[in-house]
């Protein structure tokens, strides 16, 4: 195949072409990587949430802070998964995509950006499925302040991206520290107030727990759903986005600084 006319592509054209190619490749490999992988991709988080909802509504209370428990839990888990799944996708991106760096057009940061985008996309699908299921079960899922709810959901994605960017570098450079990070992340779901209300805790403990931006994001989503929700008094929506901005910037800076070290063996 030869045409001798050759015009070099601009950097932006290359990056956009790479993003498109990577996005389709990642999506394909996530969807078709095993038997019914597409089903488990969506079913796993849905089952996870459904399990919790059943346990809580059957055994425990019907209402949390002015919102029905099922809705309260679904919002919390959606927000938490948005953060957790995005960050863990980025964390593991370097190892998973090593083979792709055979093509010098593909930069490490491209694979992370594409993974973040794809995960956000999948989470929107999962959110639609879960909220539709709630409607079918007879719950009202119309948020009072949709913009606040979506804003907080987006904020949690940004925090996930920032955290994933930073930890991906840390894990690649210092594998031992990576183990500690995973250990610290384990109780994250509990301390972010996904399955019990943080507002029920004494203020001295809350003060510390509310340093965690994920807790702010999850509470904001619930507040956006119902203005009468008894949110944690320390809730600060600006904190989510300043944390997101700071961590994404720091993560990108780390990737810029260690770009060569991260891909060379």
């Amino acid at each position, binding site marked *: *195949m*030869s*045409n*001798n006319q*050759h015009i070099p*592509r601009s950097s932006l*054209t*290359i990056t956009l*072409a*790479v993003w*498109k*190619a*990577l996005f*389709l*490749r990642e999506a*394909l*490999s996530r969807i*078709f*990587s095993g038997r019914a992988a597409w089903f488990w991709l969506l079913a796993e988080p849905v089952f996870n949430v459904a399990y919790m909802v059943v346990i809580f509504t059957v055994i425990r209370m019907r209402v949390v802070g002015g919102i029905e428990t099922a809705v309260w839990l679904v919002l919390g888990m959606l927000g938490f998964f948005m953060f957790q799944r995005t960050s863990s996708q980025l964390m593991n991106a370097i190892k998973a995509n090593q*083979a*792709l*760096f*055979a*093509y*010098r*057009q*593909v930069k490490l940061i491209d694979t992370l950006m594409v993974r973040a985008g794809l995960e956000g996309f999948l989470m929107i699908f999962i959110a639609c499925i879960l909220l539709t299921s709630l409607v079918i079960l007879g719950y009202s899922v119309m948020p009072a302040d949709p913009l606040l709810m979506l804003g907080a959901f987006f904020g949690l994605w940004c925090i996930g991206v920032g955290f994933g960017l930073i930890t991906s570098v840390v894990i690649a450079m210092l594998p031992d520290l990576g183990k500690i990070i995973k250990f610290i992340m384990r109780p994250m779901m509990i301390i972010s107030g996904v399955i019990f209300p943080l507002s029920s805790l004494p203020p001295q403990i809350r003060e510390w727990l509310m340093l965690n931006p994920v807790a702010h994001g999850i509470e904001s989503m619930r507040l956006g759903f119902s203005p009468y929700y008894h949110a944690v008094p320390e809730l600060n929506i600006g904190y989510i986005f300043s944390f997101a901005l700071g961590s994404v910037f720091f993560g990108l800076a780390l990737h810029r600084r260690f770009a*060569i070290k991260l*891909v*060379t*063996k």
Partner: protein
Amino acid sequence: MIIINDVYKRYKSERESSDWVLHDINLTIPSNVSVALIGANGAGKSTLMSLIGGVDKPNKGTVERHCRVSWSMGFGGGLHGALTGRQNAKFVCRVHGYEDDIKARLAYIQDFAGIGDAFDRPVKSYSAGMKSRLQFGLSLAFDFDVYLSDEVTSTGDAAFRKKAADSFKKLADHSSIIMVSHDEGTLKEFCTAGILIADGAAHWFDHIDDALKSYKDGRPK
């Protein structure tokens, strides 16, 4: 033309100072000259190859590519096991910016690789020979000035090697190849010049026969 300027390369290791794999490499590979990289196992052939291909960066020095250089083909790198040959081929087309005529290129790759229905099966089910057929087809579907081949031809059968050789000869008027292989016959068939790598240093030979002779004598120069 590819200019390798004062290049040093060593790998990260547990101990702080690992030995230089390559040191003080200064080479100019002219256009339209096919070059064989020759050296013992572990001499640094593949390292030099990945530096030329831009996959790895030297610790010191620069590699300038004044032409279109392919990715380095070999050992199944760059292929995704869970995806089919066709999906992998589409990915490579898109990365290289050939979205418009993707159909024609896919047809060419499928025809060249000659792996039949396996083109639509996951790459992890391929044998080594089938992988190298696909990789070879992939790189030939694009118009590069220099093709990098790391042992990729050695796994193919006789018929495929002949096919590969024929297509390279067709390309020879405006393209060249830089090749790593332990098979003397393959090197002589494709290449005119040689680079002998020994003790971390590289030596240029205008004629492949001199390079091979020097390699066999065990003494560079």
